[in-house]
């Protein structure tokens, strides 16, 4: 058995947290969850350091130095030092995030909307068949239904039919949620039983 010690720790921590839902052992469970959240915060710091290191290597590439990496590094350092100096609750810091990050990300989502429309336009040029047609019809129908063009019970379609068609995505999503719950349960059980040991490297 490889890495039995780590496996035993993983199994023991998992069992303790699980039992914390059923047994009044919140203090022990809280300590373990607090360690997990701290380690997760450090993991975000490590991820930030890894991101800075990647762009630093791209900037130091002899032939083709990535200038975008240089921009990233400059923005990172400026934000880090400003937020570190001003604090996260400073309105100047809030303005920087609000005026830069929100429009950028919102623009990206707008482009996605255009790209998805164009992809739907070229759908049949790349893939043809029954499912393509089903997909096309579903997209068009639910776009119309979601847009409210068809109305929400007081429009072209009766309310019952609109509710029926609005409940169809809920049914599908519930099935997906049930599957995800079963998958999460199985993964937890595997880890608790030691069958799946992602921590062993």
């Amino acid at each position, binding site marked *: 058995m490889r890495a039995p010690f780590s496996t035993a720790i993983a199994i023991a921590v998992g069992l303790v947290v699980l039992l914390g839902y059923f047994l009044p052992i919140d203090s022990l469970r*809280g300590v373990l969850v607090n360690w997990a*959240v701290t380690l997760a915060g450090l993991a*975000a710091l490590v991820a930030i350091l890894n991101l800075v290191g990647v762009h630093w290597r791209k900037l130091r590439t002899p032939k083709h130095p990535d200038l975008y990496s240089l921009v990233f590094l400059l923005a990172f350092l400026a934000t880090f030092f400003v937020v570190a100096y001003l604090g996260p609750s400073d309105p100047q810091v809030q303005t920087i*995030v609000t005026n830069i990050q929100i429009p950028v990300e919102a623009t990206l989502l707008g482009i996605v909307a255009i790209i998805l429309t164009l992809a*739907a336009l070229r759908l*049949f*040029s790349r893939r043809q068949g029954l499912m393509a047609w089903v997909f096309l019809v579903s997209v068009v129908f639910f776009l119309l239904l979601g847009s*409210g*063009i068809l109305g929400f019970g007081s429009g072209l379609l009766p309310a019952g039919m609109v509710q029926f068609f609005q409940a169809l995505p809920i049914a599908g999503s519930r099935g997906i949620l049930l599957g995800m719950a079963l998958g999460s349960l199985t993964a937890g059980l595997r880890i608790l039983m030691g069958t799946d040991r992602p921590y062993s490297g």
Partner: protein
Amino acid sequence: MAMADIRCSMCGRNNPEDLQECKFCGARLKPMVAGGLESAQPAAKGEETDWLASLRAEAPADSSASDLVGDLKGSDEEEIPDWLTRLGALDRPQEEGAPAVQDGGADTPTFSLGRLPEEKPSGKPEPSQDEGEDWLLSLRSSGIVENEPTQKIHPAPDVPEEDGLPEWLSNLGESEPPSIAIPAEPEKTGTSPLPEANLPPGNTDWLRSFAANVEQPEPANQPQTSAEPAALPDWLSDFKENSGIEKTPAAEHQDEPAQPVIEHPEAESVIGLDWLAEFSAEQSADQKPDQEMMKETAEEPLPDWLASFSQGERPPSAAGQETLSTAVEQPVEPADSVLPVGETTKPVEPSEETPDWLSAFQGMSEEPPAEPATEEVAPDWLREFQQATAEPGEEEAPATPPLPTPAGEVSETAFEMLEGEEMPAQSDLLKEWLAGMTPVEPTEAFLAGHPAAEAARAESSPARAESSPARAESSPARAEEPPSTGDLPDWLRDLQTSVPDEQAPAEPAGKAASWLQEFQQALPAEEGAVEAFVPGDTLEPEQPGEKEAPQRTPAEAETQPEFPSWLASLDTSTTTAAPSPAAFVEEEPTRPAVSSGSPFAVDLPDWLSQFGESGSPGEGAAAGAAATREEGAAPAELPSWVEAMRPAQSAVPGGLLGDLTEQIVEKAGPLAGLRGVLPGNTLVTEFRSLPVYTGKLTPTDRQVTNANLLEEMLSQETEPKALPARRTQAPAIILRLAVGAALILALLLPLITNFKGFSPIPAVAPGSAGFVDAVTRLSTPATVLVAVEFEAGFSDEMRLASLGVLRSLANRGVRMALVSTNPAGPVLANHLLAEVYGRPPDPMKEAVNLGYLPGGTGSLLELAALPLQNVSGATFNVSIYTATVPFIQPGSRLDQFAAILLITDNPENGRAWIEQTVPALKRNPNASFLVISSAQAAPMLLPYSEAKQIQGMISGLSGGAMFEKQIQKPADAAKSWGAYQLGMLVAIVFIGIGGVLRGLATILRPRVKKGG
């Protein structure tokens, strides 16, 4: 009368009798007889032929001939043997057999070899056969008397002689001399150096050979009797046995030279032609006019046989048949005691009393003595006779000396000459010939060994020294002739007497033929014995002619069924008899003898077998020589490997060539009229160029089609395929820009134009009813925990969806504590609060931003389980706010909040919040869990709403617009409703247009079958 074949002297093949020319070579078969036969036929019917009449009429006028005959006759009268005298005295045979004999005698000139078997009836009774044998026996006996002293005559199988033997024949046997003493010449060899000096220059070879055989006995060491018995049929053997003649050692010694000669089957086969061939050859060589030759002949001394006639040889005993038998067994009296050395045998001149039948017989069988006169110009009848007697003459005259010219050559020359139309009349020739005979008459000295005669004989010796095989072979037969020739033929007698009327009227030819028929019929009866004898006679393996005999077609067999076997053997041997004269003469002594180991020994008669057993030492050499001849007999046969190397296609088949050659008749030149004599003319047609084989193929249509298909496939494989043209990026970019521009325009236009949309904002949305109720129930001093769990990109959607709710809460004085597990969440929360309040909210009274909760789902668990100040991640912020915000009590938990409002665009975050915090929140039964989600995450969270795990939920712009519509405070969501619908409609239009176009293109595009 059955049809018989006539052997062609040119090609040696048999032809039907009725043919005038050989069907194979075109040579005339009866050049001389053709006219003679036709002319002789009437004579045979009672009319005397002109030539014979003239002959008889002119014979007396010819003094030389008459003198000769007269001398002979006169001399013979004194020394005529008793047996001959008795023969002459016996008229009974003449009476009984006179018709036949005289017929034969009268028709002797027309007697031919070809007719001999032809006239022989197949079913002739034995007596006639015996008669035929008898006269031959008489001849044989006389011959034996002269020549057989050197032979060992063994008793032959008994022959029923007494059965059909006529009295005349019995008397003949009684009157025949048992033997004739012949002077021995020890220096004589097989080559027979003839005492030519004793022969007249004009004499024929047979006469010389006869004289040689008679006068020049061979040394005793020569094989003597090895072949003579072979050359004799049984009936002759019987005769010898019965004749009682027994050779003395001296006689054997004397006759030795003649013995080897008879051993040659080839010679035996051409006996009858040898002298004629020689005659013709010499005639052509000498180129002398007939008249001159006849004169010279007349001046020449008498031949030996005539000399012997003149000397009147007498047999030692002639006392009947028993006496003959006894005499045969008795040793023959030494030649020296009978005749002086160098003297020929004493010819027994027939007496005048010789019966006609005997004369006729003599005229038929002993005609050769008259050949010397015909050497220059032989009459047709004589030639025919010679041909006729050639084969039977083997038995009749085994002691005939060898002729210098090969038989084939002679025959060809003779017939060529005879074919000439300028041939003198037969009667005239005969007259001249007979006239030439007369000078022989006074040659008593020659007969007695006169030097002049010997000198004359020597003149012709060089040519005769070239003894042909035929002549050499005929020598034994001729050696036996002297006794028979001793009986002067009738024609000679007739010439002597010159009394045509003395003879019976010319017998019809038919009668003569019948006589011969009887004689010939008698021969087949002996076939049994003769056939057994013939192989032994040849003492050689099968001759080609013998092999051909059984292969004859039935038609051919019918044409010559009457050939007795001995004649057949002679016939076949004739075809193969053409060795060089010198070789032949030398080979004679080495003639193969019958050996006990020979495969043919079983067929040999007893006497011949005994002879074979007691063969001379030269038999081995003779066998070797025979083998050599055998090898030489087929020189044209190429070895098989040579045949295999010969180009098979280069020559026309020989049969065709042969046919073509035989069909060509020379039309000009000295060979005019001859057929097939120049085979070289057809050589052009014999060879042809080799066929040229080409390698050009001739494929079928299917093969051509397949080849074309294969070629096309190969060409297609090598042809470059054009790659599909790559589409340019321009249309895609244009389309993308167009779509983007259309969507942007659709979103801006409602905002600009204040477009309210295609439909009103919906009043109710799924899950929205509980949400509105829960929000509306919140009021002041309630605190709501707001979880800001969305990204900056969804901030616009989430802002429009949540602003109405937050403003509603803010309006009613509900305090809000903002928290987020997203790092950007606290900033977005501040931005959101700023929009709700239009300013930064008062943390102590309105809303406080608790900050970020690190650790994801773990932090939510910690938030739900621990007091707010113990929350690790939020401690910083919460501690800040909790320390300063009075509405958050220290050590409070989640259940102190009246509601948790989750603003999220991520279903995972919504699930985590719902699953981790709802249990802790439910500790306050009035607390509610509300969700504001994006349109994207709504379907995933609606189930929780439907399950009542959360109390209300709104999603997207529509949810915010609906909430605003419900609280009747239209806000930003209601303003964006028109832009939202138009934008969605444009997107739907683009997707629809694209789908329809592609669908039409797919429908209109011709389908390509898979695998085609």
